[in-house]
């Protein structure tokens, strides 16, 4: 367990968050490097590789969904806080609990339910790139959607378990300051 002072649920959430962070940083690095390589190859040498294009596209596709989990973990999704600024800490936590029970869990469960047939089909044919000569493995890219739904539901449940406190919320009592513990500054 990374931090003994935290509950099991918080530790699970933290492990997921750090894991997703690693994935996202790898993905954005691959995206940037493959995009720069594409430019040099295309404009300097006049050659293009469909597989390289697909590497960029696939890493982007995975980044789209995984980055949502990372941002959620940091509690950095945008809020309209015109009234939130005046809410007490308790009201804020209630609002966040409500948002998870009524919106987060239904929305991502719904995606999970409706995306399932697509994923099963995609795996059954080992779906590859749309372009002939492209990269195989699109079925793995598509599978990130249900994976992310599950991760977000788990992260949401942990927030619920912590009575509306996000992983990186420094509460007034200072009970849950994983942000400090990890030395994260962003």
């Amino acid at each position: 367990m990374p931090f003994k002072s935290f509950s099991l649920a918080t530790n699970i959430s933290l492990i997921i968050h750090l894991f997703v962070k690693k994935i996202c940083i790898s993905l954005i690095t691959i995206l940037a490097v493959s995009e720069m390589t594409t430019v040099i190859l295309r404009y300097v040498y006049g050659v293009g590789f469909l597989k390289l294009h697909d590497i960029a596209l696939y890493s982007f596709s995975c980044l789209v969904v995984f980055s949502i989990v990372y941002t959620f973990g940091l509690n950095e999704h945008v809020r309209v806080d015109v009234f939130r600024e005046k809410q007490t800490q308790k009201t804020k936590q209630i609002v966040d609990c409500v948002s998870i029970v009524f919106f987060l869990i239904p929305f991502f469960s719904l995606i999970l339910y409706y995306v399932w047939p697509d994923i099963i089909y995609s795996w059954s044919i080992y779906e590859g790139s749309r372009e002939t000569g492209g990269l195989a493995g699109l079925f793995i890219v598509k599978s990130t959607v249900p994976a992310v739904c599950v991760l977000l539901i788990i992260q949401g449940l942990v927030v619920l378990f912590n009575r509306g406190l996000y992983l990186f919320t420094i509460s007034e009592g200072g009970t849950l300051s994983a942000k400090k513990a990890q030395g994260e500054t962003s």
Partner: protein
Amino acid sequence: MSIETMWLLGLVISLILVIMSGMPVLLAIAGVPVLVGIIASFFGHFDLSYFSAFPQRVFGIMENSLLIAVPLFVMMGVLLERSKIAEKMLLMMAGFFGGSRSGLAYSVLIVSALIAASTGIIGATIVMLGMISLPALLKAGVSKQLSSGLICASGTLGQIIPPSIVLILLGDQISNAYIEAQQNLGNFAPDPVSVGDLFAGAILPGLLLVALYALYIFIYGFFIDKQPITAQQSADITPAIDVDFKQVCTVFLPPILLIIAVLGSILMGIATPTEAAGVGVAGTMLIAALNSNDTTNKQHAIILLGVFSAFCIAIIVSLQLSSAESSSAAFFSVLTLVLSAILVLSLVLSAYQLIKDEILGSALSQSVSVSGMVFAIIIAASMLSLVFRGFGGDEIVNELLSNIPGDRWGALLAVMIVIFLLGFILEFVEILFIVIPLVGPVLLAMDFNPVWLAILIAINLQTSFLTPPFGFALFYYRSVAPASITTVDIYKSVIPFIVIQLLAMAILVMYPQIATWLPELINK
């Protein structure tokens, strides 16, 4: 009132309430439609099979290669911010303007117009401006009202100054609508409207907006903001930096050249926005590494050599010296090989230096979290529009529009108001794809100029990003503004700029040549 209208009304009202409660906007605009849809299905008023189309929409967003530029442009912005180069650039520009408070505001406007033009993506631009220029503006004593409004408004300039994604999508839609309208009028060979026409048409209106913003800064500094400059502030701003030639070369020139390269390559149709963003990231890495404090002279030299190689490669490629027709093709091919090897080496060295300075890792994770926020809103807005259509919202809008009284100006005004209002809840892509196919053929059959109409719609959409409480520009700005700037402050700060937008639209209606002159000149 039909039962669907009741549900739609319920959807909109509950959406407003839930968003105002302060929960993440992502959960509100994704979750409320789901909940309303499920409840309505119990009464048999909503077909749950609409939801089965949603995964395809998510896959569509994941495969949208236009969006690949988002994380790359964000990374470029974060790196520019971390290397402090943009701050130095802004301060130096302020130096040119005499080191006054308004001077810094003008320089933010000019720099942000350039940046906005090169990215064309609202979220990335505003986040970048908020991080780079807001601290400098506040430190120099510019009021938080002017700085917030200026950053939000300048950030949305990317929508109107070409190249912009809005204009590309709009060009596609307007051209279809124009052909349909002309065919209905009996003209079976109308002149097509291209995206290039819209790009050319948008340049002058975009500059008009910049000029109007500048006028507002002038008026604000002269008549509204009478606060005296404190000693601390004046120490911070005057004289900003003693401008000498060497500093201009190391601080000011590289980013400007980079922005021009990124913008120019897209404008001239050489590179796609994604490729240009890749160039932008590479260039920013080199610039940031050059500005690092503890590079050895040897490293410095190699990186500078890399920058030099990049320029040589650009010249060789653009003059096509290494192409087969050239007499000395073999020589130039070997030369580009060597030069690109040096470039790659210097890029690797820059990356190594930035990792050592602990800049790269944190820049990457910040880019991820900012991109995550943008993607989440795009996906959630897609769910909202799906349910909106599921309740027949698009048909209701269409029906309302076709019953508007008055001549063609009445219809135009009504459409503009509808787009403006839809901008409060929908993403611009959804508005384009719902509204333009419905109203475009009708309006264009009334003998409006298609380019002019498209630019008018683009300015309108740009305005909708600024309108509280659902202006997406404000969401993005909120995510980077410090807590000392309240959300109410932000709302108040954009009001003058919304008025300016409306003024610009009025000017464009009175003088349509502003939009139509340049495309006609190019087409001649």
